[in-house]
């Protein structure tokens, strides 16, 4: 009898010791991040952080962008507390900060050199003047093109290409028999996929999502022109299956030499210039994102940043990790160990003044200018009530952007006409805004 009781008791005691011991030994940080190239490098290099901080263990949750967003939002909105460090974007940071879901990142150590961080990027990650996330990499958008194809066709790239010119050029270099599309653009539905690009296109055509009374303007003339242009351009000179291509698919197509031009994130430049990952590294040209009516809002502003949820129990350790991963030292470490084209771009002035980076990345200054030039507070020709270049900084935008993205994709495949897609989008957006109480 005694033995029967004693055994489980001993078990409980032993378990208790194990628990107690591990609590003393190391604190475990759960880091949730995207499976983008730069984050995969961070995960690989994080052993250096663990060596320097023997009292902190890192546990990684690496997910695809859409899935990560769902997991993080449900976790933080229900106060789940699964994660200690979250990878979020320019869209989420201010909205989540306003709901007090994130811990403010104040009193950063002197050595972190906060002033070195790019201002437009930091503005996007702040709320009420306080930073709530630190940028891991930042990006704008620009145009990539194949210099060899342009030379063959006798085209001269201009300092600021227009969409009309792009259409003309696409016609000249489009060569489906050789498997080369004139231009590749995002077509995969989603507010962070096709709508990021489409919104910049609409901006430069002089359109906007909402007027000052929050009434949607998706059935306006500017939207119509922009979407008709987009559908027409991709159907004539785009790659096959354009409506299922997102950033990653187009990156693969372009680096395999299957696109003549591509307008997308500046963060792709490092990969395209890396000869081990790209077939077109030696014949790559770049130019600003094309414009139509107005240069305003023609290129976007985005950053992936690290933040600490208010529900985390290890805020200090999390802060320690975030400041490590976004520090100048980290950038240099990636440069030394992985290669200078692979360093996370678009976050620090010091990256751009670094000679080694400038040498390895001819696009460096260009990207810096594009990021500095993007202004989320003034991105549309007519005034708009929202902040964000390729996004609308309200919580409802996820839903709106996804719905409208689906409609635009349907217009692209010919499932419905552009007019019908836009009037459906207008109606759906109107409903969402009424439901959320913006318009009565």
């Amino acid at each position, binding site marked *: 009898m005694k033995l029967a009781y004693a055994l489980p008791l001993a078990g409980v005691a032993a378990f208790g010791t194990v628990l107690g011991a591990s609590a003393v030994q190391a604190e475990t940080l759960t880091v949730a991040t995207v499976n983008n190239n730069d984050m995969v490098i961070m995960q690989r290099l994080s052993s250096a952080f663990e060596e320097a901080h023997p009292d902190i263990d890192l546990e990684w949750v690496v997910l695809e962008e859409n899935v990560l967003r*769902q997991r993080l*939002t*449900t976790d933080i*909105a*229900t106060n789940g507390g699964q994660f200690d460090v979250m990878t979020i974007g320019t869209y989420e940071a201010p*909205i989540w900060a306003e*709901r007090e879901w994130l811990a403010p990142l104040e009193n950063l150590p002197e050595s972190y050199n906060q002033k070195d961080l790019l201002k437009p990027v930091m503005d996007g990650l702040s709320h009420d003047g306080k930073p709530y996330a630190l940028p891991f990499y930042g990006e704008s958008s620009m145009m990539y093109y194949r210099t060899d194809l342009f030379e063959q066709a006798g085209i001269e790239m201009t300092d600021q290409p227009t969409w009309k010119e792009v259409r003309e050029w696409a016609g000249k270099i489009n060569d489906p028999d050789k498997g080369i599309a004139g231009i590749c653009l995002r077509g995969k*539905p*989603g507010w962070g996929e096709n709508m990021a690009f489409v919104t910049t296109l609409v901006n430069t055509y002089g359109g906007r999502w909402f007027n000052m009374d929050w009434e949607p303007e998706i059935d306006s003339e500017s939207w119509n022109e922009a979407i008709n242009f987009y559908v027409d351009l991709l159907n004539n000179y785009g790659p*096959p*299956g354009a*409506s*299922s291509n997102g950033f990653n698919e187009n990156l693969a197509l372009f680096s395999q030499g299957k696109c003549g031009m591509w307008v997308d994130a500046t963060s792709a430049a490092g990969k395209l210039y890396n000869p081990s990952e790209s077939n077109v590294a030696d014949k790559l040209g770049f130019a600003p994102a094309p414009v139509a009516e107005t240069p305003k809002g023609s290129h976007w502003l985005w950053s992936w940043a690290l933040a600490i949820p208010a529900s985390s129990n290890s805020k200090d350790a999390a802060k320690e990790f975030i400041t490590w991963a976004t520090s100048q030292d980290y950038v240099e470490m990636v440069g030394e160990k992985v290669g200078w084209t692979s360093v996370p771009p678009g976050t620090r002035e010091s990256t751009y003044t670094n000679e080694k980076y400038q040498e390895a990345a001819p696009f460096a200054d260009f990207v810096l200018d594009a990021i500095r030039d993007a202004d989320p507070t003034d991105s549309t020709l007519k005034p708009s009530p929202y902040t964000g270049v390729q996004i609308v900084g309200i*919580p*409802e935008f*996820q*839903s709106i952007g*996804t719905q409208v993205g*689906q*409609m635009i*994709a*349907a217009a*692209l*495949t*010919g*499932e*419905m006409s552009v007019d019908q*897609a836009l009037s*459906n989008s207008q*109606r*759906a957006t109107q*409903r969402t805004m009424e*439901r*959320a*109480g913006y318009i009565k």
Partner: protein
Amino acid sequence: MTKPRAAGRTVGGLRPLMLQAPAVTLLLLWMVVPLGMTVWFSLQRYNLLMPGMTGFAGLENYEYLFTDPALWSAMGTTLLMVGWILVITVVGGTLLAVLFQQEFFGRGIARVLVISPFFVMPTVSALVWKNMMMHPANGVLAWLAQLFGMQPVDWFSSLPLTSIIMIVSWEWLPFALLILLTAMQSLDEDQVEAARMDGAGPLSIFFFITLPHLKRAISVVVMIEMIFLLTIFAEIFVTTSGGPGLATTNLAYLIYIQALLDFDVGMASAGGVVAIILANIVAIFLVRMVAKNLEE
């Protein structure tokens, strides 16, 4: 010490009821609690992204749901999908069952092979179809089309619903085949033999002997498939994400969009309640039909 065998069967019918009570209560709780919570949430203003906006919403969620053109399109898509897949699997399954009932060399292996798609996970088979079969550049179907000098089809953009129906039918055809083949094996050989001696051709044998014999099995296949097909999700999620437009958004996917892309728990619950009602309507008709068949 032997107990009377009839104990508890009589006493005014009270005893058996009391004996059943725990099991029935558990089952009821099992069903009523989630259902009750869904109904309760569907009457709330409850959006994860709007922690400030809460409270009783009355029928507002339902009002928005029923005025949403996406709901009707999703219902239509759901019925269209289920209907076509049922037709394809039952007709195809019956024909294949007749074929695989014949004696031929390597029948055992052929049977295993034809049944195997059913054991592939939906997500995996969707991925295989998306990237290896239907891809407009690298897919087998595109290669075949080019072999015959045709333009490859961009399946998921030009024929989205057809593509999904093809994938799901491929998954469920083996199931129908499996059940129908088992039923075939219980077919009385003497009867077929007798019919043949009376001069009946293979077609008449199929229509007047095989098919009536398979009737029960077919109704079981229809019922079981219907239950699973009303909730097709993984195939849509992996391949088309409900698009382009709303072309492949069924009811299950619509609820997913509302719950996990819009984070609107109230609206998603309302959608869930509607889905439950729809499933029950279908089930009542179906169960009646099948039950009738089984009684005969």
